[in-house]
């Protein structure tokens, strides 16, 4: 079930909300949680019921590991072993379903090989709930969180607004909210905010992202040669499609959760406004960046045990030693690979790793670029790198790159309607200068202007609901 489907908007979400608060108002809080858990599993299983046992199995193993971690003595070998077992299990679980064929392909291609590819369907959301649970285990190891109630833990993993594609939430930031008294009763302010953000997200997805998606698909998949104009319209269309698709999804997730009085963390903060690559990664997919920083970069780059214990962690910008450089490259390569088992994702990650290193060394020289050139360089790099993210193969990516540098001719974007060019630049200006949905949420007041605004957003969004398209990040 997709957030942008009639079934979710008019049936699932209202039903779950109504029943949940019905139970809570009658002090049946536990029943309310069971209802929420059941609804979340239904939401997940709607894609394919086969996925539910896999999810349940993953929850069971991680919860058990968490319980055992909680009972073991601090700094004991058993404790470290349990953490390793938990992390290895999650990595193998993810690796088997997502990367097995990638590694098997060269073996199978060998002439003497008699093996065949594993015909595995990628369980939905596996990349997200696996990372979420690894984070839980590590936080549990450092005694920053602990969950002894299986219902609560299951709810933490499966809570449907964030289950499928994030934001990647930490146990310590979500479950205390469920425990608070004011969470269990309906709150009209949160309901209003939730509706506002949800429909802004819906508009971003069905009106903006899907429009640019048509042109991105045309350029990437349907045209064999791209001239200069066509290549830039294609790449910019994809950059805008990806941003509006994913941030739209996140808004709908945050809006849905808000209606339940649960605040999910922000995941996008106008990333295309960034003036350097480091700032970009503080604004794009914030919760994943946070996860990679806390659970990969810090352990890889810090020497001291105290640092590893999260005490007195040196600021990353202060570290340019070999270990830190290595950590950055590893993190970004894994960042790329997390998105998909393919060489294009790996190269995309490496490019960003190199860009981050270049930025670090440049910063040390303390000669900042003028703001306009810093922005142009950053956005230009990000937009160019997204081509690898979208291309189905290296040849496809090269096709677009050849066009972008004019090898295939310096023509106008004649393959696209004039409105495409106008919209690309207009929407880019809006992205750069207009407030984002988090800022809109902060400015929201229940008055006539906002009512008219939401009326317009709802009217246009609902009218475009008929052609349901998948969210791009569901593929990861």
């Amino acid at each position, binding site marked *: 079930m997709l957030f942008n489907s009639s079934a979710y908007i008019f049936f699932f979400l209202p039903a779950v909300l109504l029943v949940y608060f019905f139970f809570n108002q009658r002090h049946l809080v536990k029943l309310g949680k069971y209802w929420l858990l059941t609804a979340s599993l239904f939401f997940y299983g709607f894609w394919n019921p086969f996925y539910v046992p896999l999810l349940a199995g993953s929850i069971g193993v991680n919860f058990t590991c968490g319980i055992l971690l909680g009972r073991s003595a601090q700094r004991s070998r058993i404790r470290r072993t349990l953490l390793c077992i938990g992390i290895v299990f999650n990595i193998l679980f993810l690796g088997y379903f997502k990367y097995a064929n990638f590694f098997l392909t060269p073996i199978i291609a060998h002439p003497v090989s008699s093996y065949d590819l594993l015909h595995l369907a990628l369980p939905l959301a596996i990349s997200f709930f696996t990372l979420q649970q690894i984070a839980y285990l590590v936080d549990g190891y450092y005694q920053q969180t602990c969950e002894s109630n299986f219902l609560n833990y299951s709810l933490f993993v499966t809570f449907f607004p964030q289950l499928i594609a994030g934001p990647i939430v930490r146990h310590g930031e979500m479950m205390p909210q469920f425990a608070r008294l004011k969470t269990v009763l309906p709150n*009209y302010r949160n309901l209003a905010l939730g509706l506002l953000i949800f429909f802004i997200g819906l508009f971003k997805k069905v009106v903006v992202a899907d429009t640019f998606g048509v042109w991105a698909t045309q350029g990437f998949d349907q045209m064999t040669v791209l001239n200069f104009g066509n290549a830039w319209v294609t790449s910019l269309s994809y950059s805008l499609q990806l941003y509006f698709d994913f941030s739209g999804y996140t808004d709908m997730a945050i809006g849905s959760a808000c209606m339940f009085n649960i605040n999910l963390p922000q995941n996008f903060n106008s990333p295309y406004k960034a003036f350097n690559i480091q700032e970009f990664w503080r604004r794009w997919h914030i919760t994943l960046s946070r996860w990679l920083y806390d659970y990969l970069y810090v352990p890889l780059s810090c020497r001291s045990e105290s640092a590893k214990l999260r005490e007195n962690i040196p600021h990353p910008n202060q570290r340019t030693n070999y270990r830190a450089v290595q950590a950055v490259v590893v993190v970004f390569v894994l960042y790329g690979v997390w998105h998909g088992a393919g060489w294009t994702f790996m190269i995309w990650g490496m490019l960003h790793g190199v860009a981050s290193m270049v930025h670090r060394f440049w910063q040390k020289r303390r000669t900042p670029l003028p703001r306009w050139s810093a922005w142009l360089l950053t956005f230009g790099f990000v937009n160019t790198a997204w081509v690898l993210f979208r291309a189905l193969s290296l040849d496809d990516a090269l096709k677009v790159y050849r066009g972008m540098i004019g090898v295939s001719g310096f023509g106008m974007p004649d393959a696209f309607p004039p409105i495409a060019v106008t919209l690309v630049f207009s929407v880019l200006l809006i992205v750069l200068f207009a407030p984002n949905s988090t800022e809109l949420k902060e400015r929201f*007041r229940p*008055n*006539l202007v906002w009512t008219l605004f939401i009326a317009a957003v*709802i009217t246009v969004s609902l009218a*475009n609901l*008929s052609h349901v398209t998948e969210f791009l990040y569901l593929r990861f």
Partner: protein
Amino acid sequence: MKCLFSYQRFCLLTLLIIGGALLFNLLVWQLLNRQLLTPDEGVYIGELAQTGYLYDHTAPRRNTIDLPRKHLRYAEYAGQKIDVLTIGDSFSQGGGNGPNRFYQDYIASLQNLAVLNLPVKIDSANNLLESVAILVNSGFMERIDPRYILLQRSEQNIYEFAETTDLGKSLPPEQLDSMLANTNAPADSDTDPGIFNLPGNHFLNPANLKWLWYKIGYFFSRNAFISHVYLEELDRSLFSGAHGDALLFLDKALDKHRDKQKALDERAVRRINENLNRLASLLAETNIRLVFMPVPDKYSLYRPYLREKHYSRSAFFEHLRWQPKVYQLIDTDAILAKELKTGVKDLYWIDDTHWSWKASRAIFEQFRFEK
């Protein structure tokens, strides 16, 4: 701005807005757009009315044939003797729909001729002239051995005949046979098919908002500011229905009036004529006579009856008429203009870019193939 009402009231208003939006979509779709955009099976509504969301300017019709003799489709051809081979765009594929939608059936019935239609689409050909040349050079025409080839093209796309045309192209017979065997769809349409991309079959549909926009927009603008379909007023009723004095036409028909590069001026028409003559000479080598049937665009044909004439008339036929020809020209513009003067209704369909059976009948009552 201050809070004018409570969050509770805001939530209620939002839910009311959602309900209102659903109701609006449901009503507009069920009462108006559904029948316009997804008519019942077997019922056809013209693309102009659909694209312009002009549900009250429609002429719903069914495809029927009651003529005594019909033409052959390529799938039905099994070596029969053919008098006339027709090659063209959507007009040649019965694009207008309705009763007796194929002009070829009128040729067959009125003149007792064996007619075969070939929906040709050869990728390596730049235009229909090259397509015909490829068929000749590849030996295909020798097999069919028609006495005539009727080449039909609508005026708004005819500029391609003025471009550089290589009549020496050919294809291996096997490749050609394979291409023709897979040709099920009609040849390239008159217009960019993207213009007629219609929304799907669901009541939550952008078509409902477009209907509202166009409904208001046509009051203030001939094309509702953004539509490809223009709506102008005639000084007499030349179509059936409540809006018989309304003329709908496509903006593409205006390209040649507004875009110098696409203008069918005397030079362009001369080049068209030269290319047609070259093709006619090529066909003559195999004892086949070329008949050229350009289709006048709806705007130019009905222009004399418009209350306000915002655009000039196409001079294509005027330029072509006096050119020296090796081929035969069916002057559809003169024939249909004469018909219109009699006040005949629905010579073209009100809701379509295509003509009706009345135009086909009029043309082939006046134009005779020599025996």
